[in-house]
């Protein structure tokens, strides 16, 4: 597989995404809500608790809420790809651009990787921006209130650095598979939203287990890596050029 070929497809898709206002604003909206509104809500909640809790209880509650904010970041990265990746091939179908694209000397794997990267990059970038804003708000509050920074902690770093990209990749691949199998944008987005649900459920288990034991979290992360690779392989296997050209009207 020639990675530079995939990168050409990625660059083109990113240009198209930038010009698509619906996709662009949808991408920005959710992290803006979860990256700003959620930590601000946590800050207000904690401020309300400060009078009734001891210092240790207050610290424990603050740490718990910070871990919940990290959980939300993992979930955002799993939800966002349904906006872009579900559009991946169906968008090409709508513009009727798939036939000339498939006529180029590009393999299925290169095409799929390019399209997956084009969905992954903005989703993960937006999630990390949300993580940075969230960390800034929560750390500013904790420094003022407690005299120390609560972020980063081990769980937050593991969630953002490991689980977030893995969740994002899994969701991207599932949505790319859906997108290459259906021929209608609405169907792609609805099905894309549906396939994300079990992924979210699984991620919740992972995140909760991570809070219980880091070894368990590492094990589940390995399972996620294997699942990501398997989904990419599956997307390659289920990608049928001929079916797309002859059955899509």
């Amino acid at each position, binding site marked *: 597989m020639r990675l530079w070929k995939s990168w050409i497809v990625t660059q*083109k898709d990113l240009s*198209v995404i930038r010009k698509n206002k619906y996709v662009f604003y949808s991408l920005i909206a959710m992290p803006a809500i979860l990256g700003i509104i959620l930590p601000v809500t946590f800050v207000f909640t904690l401020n309300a608790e400060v009078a009734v809790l001891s210092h240790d209880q207050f610290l424990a509650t603050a740490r718990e809420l910070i871990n919940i904010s990290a959980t939300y970041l993992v979930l955002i990265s799993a939800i966002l790809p349904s906006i872009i990746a579900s559009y991946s091939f169906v968008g090409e179908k709508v513009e*009727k651009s798939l036939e000339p694209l498939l*006529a180029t*000397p590009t393999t299925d794997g290169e095409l799929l990787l390019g399209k997956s990267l084009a969905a992954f990059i903005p989703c993960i970038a937006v999630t990390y921006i949300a993580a940075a804003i969230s960390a800034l708000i929560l750390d500013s509050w904790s420094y003022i209130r407690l005299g120390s920074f609560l972020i980063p902690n081990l769980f937050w770093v593991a969630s953002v650095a490991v689980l977030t990209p893995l969740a994002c990749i899994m969701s991207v691949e599932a949505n790319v598979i859906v997108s290459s199998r259906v021929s209608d944008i609405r169907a792609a987005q609805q099905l894309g939203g549906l396939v994300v649900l079990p992924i979210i459920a699984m991620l919740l288990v992972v995140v909760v287990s991570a809070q219980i034991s880091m070894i368990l979290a590492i094990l589940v992360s390995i399972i996620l890596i294997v699942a990501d690779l398997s989904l990419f392989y599956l997307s390659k296997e289920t990608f049928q050029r*001929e079916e797309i050209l002859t059955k899509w009207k």
Partner: protein
Amino acid sequence: MIDTEDLTRKFGSLAAVENLSLHVNEGEVFGFLGPNGAGKTTTIRMLCCLIGKTSGEARIDDLSVDKEKDCLEIRKIVGLLPENVGLYESLSAYRNLDFYGKLYEVPARLRQENIERLLELLGVWERREDAVGTFSKGTKQKIAIARALIHDPKVLFLDEPTANLDPEAAKTVRDFILELKKEKRTIFLNTHNLEEAEKLCDRIAILKTRLVAVDSPKNLERSLYSRKTVVHLENLNAEVLAAAKQLGKVKSVRASDNKLILDIDNPEEDNPEVVRAIVEAGGRIRYVTELRSTLEDVYLKLIREASAQ
């Protein structure tokens, strides 16, 4: 350059293309005519390695459409203008061509030169930075043609290049194909437009799932209907008509207004004698012309025959 042997493609029990055997020479403009659903687009898709075949053989420049490795090579030497232009509407004309140039592995400098040359030739260079979505159908078609040529392909497949274009845009596209013909590029042209096929193509194949006929437009016209000699007279009278009918070399005579329409086996050789006989019978000839069947006549006859079978 293009060879097929009993090429067949079935969708379930329905045969889209059946036992197609043809040879297209290098530098030839080859027209592919047929009604809707005749298998023209399916043939192009098989030849471009976009879809597989059910049976038979197909080769382009000695590369087989069967082998995955050969298919990647075929895609490098083939340019395709599909029925739908399929451009990225939100991207500029330049960005569209640049993207495809990169996928076709054209080096950066050559890619830039090719884009400029093609857009200049097609009169779109000034609007190269405008989003494709703002262009007319004709301009989009021109950009799609430029896209098919961005990697300087040996073989060009054009699927209905002037369909849905206004006469002016269609003429620009046709003129451009004529320019490509001068470059001795192999062009495989799917079209419904018989006049266009006659003007542009060296040879024409008529397809209706099966190959119905293949020859040059002139030979096709000659093969089905004999040519007729039309003698335009100042005044057609009974003596002149009788004299024409008496000539042994004339197979049939038809009078229409002041014209005699004569069916003659070998007009180049026999016309002088026929003209002399008419003049001797008192006929005053204004001029003599040739009446030929058109490609449309031939096409319709062959398609009707193929449908009846």
